[in-house]
């Protein structure tokens, strides 16, 4: 098989390796790994299972899974966009929380009709997210403050300030969360009865699909996308070619923020319907891993986010059905990411092994010269474009 094809298949091997090691661990704890994995899939409504309590079954779980998958896709796209200009947006969680909160206050409690409220939620999510991301971009180019530092600090700022408002003015005394938003403003239609089943219809997935397509087109087909990539790859060359480096940093952070904002509204006004104070959404952090696994490519992110969401969503059912600790899912995620981080080595190894065997030398050479790595790197980039 050709070298480039093998390199493209690395993520698949990475995932398989994660499941194999995870399976061994499950077997070591005395459970059947195959049953456990089957339960994992069943828990997400991707495999048949018996209907349970009050008109709920496979289709119910599937839609619930999609509802949780949606913010993951959007959040991961946010990380990927920032990564393209060379910025590490670790603040997706804070941006999600901020836009979710603003949309909750502005629209969620407003009593507007559904056909005004729902689009308005989306618009507010985009604007609030772009604002939150824009702060990071602004601090970066105006004062050269490292985006990792500023976004982590903003995460805390958003989390505590919003908690204060929720606990002081908006708390639901029973759930200890913010008061539930109106059904009209929610991006998930709750408890819809169709035939024999009751289900939640996730409208957000439409936004996610559109976002994936738009971002793909943006990077591959537009002048702005090309400039953004150029700035990320070489600051000085971009400046030389007359591109505005600061403008592009700002643009990328605002787009990243807007995507995080969409993730926020599909999460807080879709899946949940309320905000838990003093908790940053885990989705925001998992999305960094997803973007890594998906190689910062929109299509890769669709698959990677699917996988990571299966692991997190299905683990509860796996626990109740076969008694395997839900944390095993995290172990598998961790191992996948570990292998994923070894990507560069695996690529180098394949590229290198390929050249040595072609020459007819049986012995594997240990030379760690940079040229082999450079070739692998170049091949990798070729795959990306």
């Amino acid at each position: 098989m050709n070298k480039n094809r093998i390199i493209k298949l690395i993520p698949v091997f990475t995932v398989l390796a994660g499941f194999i090691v995870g399976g061994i661990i499950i077997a070591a704890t005395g459970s059947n790994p195959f049953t456990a994995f089957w339960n994992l899939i069943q828990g997400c409504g991707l495999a048949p299972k018996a209907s349970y309590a009050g008109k709920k079954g496979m289709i119910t779980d599937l839609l619930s899974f999609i509802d949780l998958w949606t913010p993951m896709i959007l959040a991961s796209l946010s990380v990927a966009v920032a990564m393209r200009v060379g910025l590490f947006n670790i603040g997706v969680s804070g941006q999600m929380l901020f836009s979710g909160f603003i949309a909750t206050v502005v629209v969620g409690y407003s009593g507007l009709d559904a056909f005004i409220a729902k689009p308005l939620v989306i618009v507010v999510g985009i604007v609030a997210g772009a604002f939150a991301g824009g702060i990071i971009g602004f601090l970066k180019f105006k004062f050269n403050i490292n985006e990792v530092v500023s976004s982590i600090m903003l995460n805390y700022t958003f989390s505590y300030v919003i908690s204060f408002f929720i606990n002081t003015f908006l708390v639901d005394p029973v759930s200890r969360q913010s008061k539930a938003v109106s059904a009209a403003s929610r991006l998930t239609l709750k408890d819809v009865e169709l035939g024999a089943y009751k289900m939640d219809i996730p409208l957000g997935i439409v936004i996610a699909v559109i976002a994936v397509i738009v971002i793909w087109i943006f990077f591959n087909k537009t002048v702005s996308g090309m400039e953004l990539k150029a700035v990320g790859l070489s600051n000085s060359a971009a400046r030389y070619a007359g591109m505005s480096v600061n403008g592009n940093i700002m643009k990328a952070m605002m787009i990243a923020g807007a995507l995080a904002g969409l993730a926020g509204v599909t999460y807080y006004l879709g899946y949940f319907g309320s905000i838990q104070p003093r908790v940053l959404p885990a989705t925001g952090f998992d999305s960094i891993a997803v973007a890594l696994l998906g190689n910062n490519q929109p299509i890769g992110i669709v698959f990677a986010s699917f996988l990571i969401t299966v692991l997190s969503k299905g683990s509860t059912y796996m626990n109740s059905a076969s008694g395997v600790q839900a944390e095993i899912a995290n172990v598998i995620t961790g191992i996948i990411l570990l292998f994923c981080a070894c990507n560069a080595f695996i690529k180098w190894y394949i590229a290198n092994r390929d050249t040595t065997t072609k020459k007819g030398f049986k012995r594997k050479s240990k030379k760690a010269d940079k040229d082999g790595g450079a070739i692998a790197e170049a091949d990798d980039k070729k795959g990306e474009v």
Partner: protein
Amino acid sequence: MSDYIVEMRNITKRFPGIVANDNVSIQIKKGEIYALLGENGAGKSTLMSMLFGMYEPDEGEIYIRGEKTQIESPNHATKLNIGMVHQHFKLVSNYTIAENIIMGMEPMKKALGFIPMVDIKKANKEIAELSKRYGLEVNPEDVIEDVNVSIRQRVEILKMLYREAEILIFDEPTAILTPQEIQFLLDIIRGLRDSGKTIIIITHKLDEIKQIADRCAILNRGRLIDVLDVKTTDTKTMANMMVGREVNFKTDKKDPVFGEEVLKVDNITVKNKDGLPVVKNVSFSVRAGEVLAIAGVSGNGQIEIADAITGILNVDSGKIYLNGNDITDKTVRQRIDAGIDYIPEDRNAVGMVMDFTLAENLALKSYYNEPFSIRGILNRPAFDSYGNKLIEKYDIRSSQGNPTIVRTMSGGNQQKAIIGREIEHESTFMIFVQPTRGLDIGAIENIHRQIIEERDKGQAILLISLELDEVMNLADTIAVIYSGEIQTIADAKNLTLDQVGQFMMGVGSDE
């Protein structure tokens, strides 16, 4: 038993899309200076990388001291007493000179009788002695990032000597040095030969070969053309063999026809990051059809002048006019569109986005205009057809043409691409900074011809070069810069090489 210390027999090495070495055989005697001469991409560095264990040959055999050897790694090569100074130094910049040299074979001592520790005092002493013995004076306790390239190169040489290398490979050692430093280095290399070392030097500078080498192997496109005795061969013959055709050292040019003033730089001052002025009250103007060359030793503010004219750096005071319009406060893009072309000094970090394709880089200054993009949407077919046109016209060689990632191309072809792109871009004024740096004779000749062609078409040209020969060869008017100030501006006919040299050292103005 063989008389040769190194023998490479019938070596062939292929890379995807290219044969880097095609059945090359060379034999090197102990104690000689052996030069490898060839254009960029002729396969010199590849051949030596195989001797140093960085690659393995696809075919062929290597004999070291008469024994057939398969060199597996640079470490293995070091064990065989082979050392190499790479074109790009491999030093840890925040370590001291001594730490860099001993790395991997540190002299050890036992603190309190049992805790193993690096004996840095002993290392410093050993290195001081070693550097004195070979005339390579360095202070072992200096940190690499505080010393200049010439010292860094000495450190690389000492690194080889510390490892008791007998066979020393130098890859383009003079490319980054000033004329005085080059002389010093050549003396060192001669001294090393006299103390019994065998030297292999990769270069394309003929006069250096003539000065120090005993024998010289000429490579052209991966094939060995000939091995010559340097004493009995003149440089002209070597050059012709290397390029594969007749070479003109002197660029033919007509008398200049000057037109209107195109660029006017009026009393500009540019400050660096630390707020110190690096360009001080500089004024000059360039007319259509004129090559104005700024000569000077590296780091005297030339690059900053170019960056200020193109808008990459802001001027602190003064004005810049293009065709009579004040462009001092315009953005880089506005200046590009107003007709400024710029071939920057650093083609890797500045001139191109190395991980973009060739086609994208060729359109790097026009992608935002039709037909490359229409209302913000890229039109890929336009990139490809434009790419094909330039690849053909400027003979840009790469493994796959348009989709080639520029990083994988050779330096000479990268430069061809940049120059082609800038010439094709519509303009009235061009800046060339070190346009032939690191290139071989064939490519240099070609670029010089292109510069003169552009001049004759009526372009105003600013040439900034550290190579005095290049300045003397091309310029109609010469300005000499020293410490950020213009020392003199004069008609090229009225200045001799020596005079320019004196102005460059800041002493000419006394006359």
